[in-house]
């Protein structure tokens, strides 16, 4: 079985609790995720469920302090030169995988933007207003590739052409305020892709855009992914976007991954109460209702849940002290290719839950 491009294993990140000295809030705990080349992993969840923290941890973008990486590994297999760059951190290298959390800032800079790129939620504020688009894209290119300025300009122009911008040579000389939101998000994508990263972290890339532009941007990402065999970690809370784009879906709640399965399986047979509630709460076009369903209305434990495992009912307001789903709960593969946060009935089965990974890609339409 092929190795994933990146696998996050048992990641836990905490921040100091406000107003309480010494106490820490666990932003994420026991997060396990994996992305394969050419695959889109969608991470869905409410605000504050730890989606962004997980993604930002990949690039070590969590400011420490106040944040702290408590435990876990982030194994990266996308770089050819990373093992050398991390040579001084011998403990971080194994099976040509690098543990990104052990890299120092200098080694990390060779990864950021180069092997792993990120696009942010707000296209309106993600571009520096005092520089032209060309200067901003070229800076990224010049940082990571040994090319001349004129070659960098050509790369920037072709990156703009890739994301479907007309007259790229002209656009390079323009300033961010001269563009609309959708155009700016295209620029952000062009900037992220100019260095041909192996993995793209897209943190709610379409939230600020209207539906038509949203569809265009997502279509664009799919096309570019196919061309470059790039992994995408798509963070969103829009289940429509997930259904349209994702290969594999991870549902997060209260800092934990509660369910991990391929998109078809997850939408057709959600197993975890929270996921079930989440899917149920989506309003259906054309159905009349006095009152829309909330997550709690649908958060039921399925009748056919495997008897070997126990899943706790959904608790919408878990206390920060105890992990959501219980102290012993881990992601268990309750059915082939379907992981759910639960506890085995028999303590012997508790030994070592496998890290969830699915080398699955949806059929191309």
């Amino acid at each position, binding site marked *: 079985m092929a190795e994933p491009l990146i696998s996050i294993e048992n990641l836990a990140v905490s921040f100091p609790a406000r107003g309480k000295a010494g106490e820490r809030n666990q932003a994420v705990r026991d997060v396990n995720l994996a992305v394969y080349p050419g695959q889109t992993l969608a991470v869905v969840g409410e605000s504050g469920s730890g989606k962004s923290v997980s993604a930002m941890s990949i690039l070590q973008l969590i400011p420490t302090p106040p944040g702290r990486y408590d435990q876990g590994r982030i194994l990266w297999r996308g770089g050819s030169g990373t093992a050398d760059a991390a040579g001084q951190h011998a403990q971080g290298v194994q099976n040509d995988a690098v543990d990104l959390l052990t890299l120092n800032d200098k080694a990390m800079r060779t990864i950021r933007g180069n092997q792993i790129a990120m696009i*942010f939620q707000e296209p309106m504020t993600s571009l*520096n207003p005092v520089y032209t688009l060309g200067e901003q894209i070229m800076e990224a290119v010049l940082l990571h590739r040994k090319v001349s300025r004129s070659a960098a300009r050509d790369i920037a122009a072709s990156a703009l052409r890739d994301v479907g911008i007309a007259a790229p040579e002209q656009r390079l000389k*323009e300033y961010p305020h001269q563009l609309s939101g959708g155009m700016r998000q295209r620029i952000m994508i062009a900037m992220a892709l100019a260095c041909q990263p192996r993995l793209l972290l897209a943190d709610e890339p379409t939230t600020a855009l209207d539906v038509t532009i949203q569809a265009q941007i997502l279509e664009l990402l799919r096309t570019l992914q196919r061309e470059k065999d790039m992994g995408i970690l798509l963070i969103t809370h829009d289940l429509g976007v997930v259904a349209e784009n994702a290969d594999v879906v991870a549902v997060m709640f209260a800092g934990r991954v509660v369910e991990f399965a391929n998109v078809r399986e997850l939408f057709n047979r959600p197993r975890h109460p929270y996921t079930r509630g989440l899917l149920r709460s989506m309003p259906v076009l054309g159905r009349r209702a006095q009152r829309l369903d909330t997550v709690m209305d649908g958060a039921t434990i399925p009748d056919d849940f495997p008897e070997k495992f126990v899943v706790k009912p959904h608790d919408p307001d878990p206390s920060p002290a105890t992990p959501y789903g219980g102290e012993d709960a881990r992601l268990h593969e309750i059915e082939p290719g379907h992981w759910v946060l639960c506890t085995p009935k028999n303590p012997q089965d508790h030994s070592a839950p496998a890290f969830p990974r699915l080398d699955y890609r949806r059929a191309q339409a």
Partner: protein
Amino acid sequence: MTKAAPPTESSAAPRSLIGAAALRLLGGWGARAGLSWIGFLVLTAVFAPVVASSHPWVWKVGGQVSSPWLRHLTVTDAVLLLSFGVAVTLLCFRRVAAGRRIAAWAVLTGCLTAAAAAGSAVDLWRERAAGGVPMVFLMVAVLLAAVIGFMALIAVSSAASWRGKAVVGFAGLLLAGGLAAAPIDPPVSVVYSSYREATAAGAVDWQVLAPLAYSPGDYQRDAMSATGIDARLKKPSLAHPLGTDESGADVLSRMIHATRIALAIGLIATGIAVVIGIVVGGLMGYFAGVVDLLGMRLVEVFSAIPVIFLLIMIVAFYGRNLYLMMVILGATGWVGYATFIRAEFLKLRKMDYVQAAHACGVPLWSILFRHMLPNGVTPVLVLASFGIASAILTESTLSFLGLGLVEEPSWGQLLNQARRAGGQWGLTLFPGLAIFLTVFAYNLVGEAMRDALDPKAAGK
């Protein structure tokens, strides 16, 4: 590669925010008036030795045509005049982008200054062999030459194209070499009366004098013995448009030469303060937390220092020294800039484009100074123009108190003399007016800049 842009595009050429702000700035009458006055002062400072000098430009004595004026030109005069010449020359290259021309001017001026500093280091070395020059001055001169030369070198090596590198580098070498090779060696002691004696004796066949034929240090001590007329504290007349001071020197000439000190103290003291303020404030704002806490305490300590008293004390211990004064003013005046930059950086560090730059693998110094600083520097620019005004005022205050420079001309020092001037009202009015107008001009520019850079006003 052909770059034939369609004509419609070039007419609507995108303008940077800075360019747009500069245009808004120049739109107001206040900024125009202030900048005109400052520009006039700059011209005066550059051409002071040309306009007001006792040394005849050219004369013929005993069949020999020579230029005493050229012989008495100092290194500072030469650097200023040459750098002005470079600026005018570069203005003519309209096809090169403005930013590149400004960069080229900075590099060339840097080469000139480095050459001048190296030259004065050599002089100091010679004088030291004779004894009497403290080692510190020599070291400072060498350091200055090295730093400025290195900066010019870096600037040349990062120029856009190979052709640009070659042209600017060659011109810089030529200028610096020319300055170093030029026989600039003005006599240490100047006897101004010799010119008048030569003229009176009829030894001069013909001469071309400067428009104002008095150097600032020409005290006309010979006038008493030659004509029996005391030249001191004369009221304004045709020969001395603003009269003479209590030593017999021409007030207008002293005022013209004093513009150099007024401009230099404002710009250098504020420059030092801005650099310190940006670095300290930037680090405080970006790292926040403990760094910010400690930095703010440092700011509080420094803002408690009474600058005038400190300066008076320094003068008492180390004597009157203009450069020391600039450094003290700079080293105590940075707190305002630091707090402004801190506030801006605290806001900017959370901005998405800073996060995006970080996620792009941009190194820290580039995030701080390339991505954040241009977005947060505007309040500092406004404050700096007020800071320049207040530095000029501080120097005038010190000179007025009699703690400033003695030999070199300064507006405040002329005002100090005015207390004892009796009927010579020119000594009170004109230096006072010059200080007032200059401070006013910088304040006007600062006000206009604040309006022009206000993002809320940008839409109107």
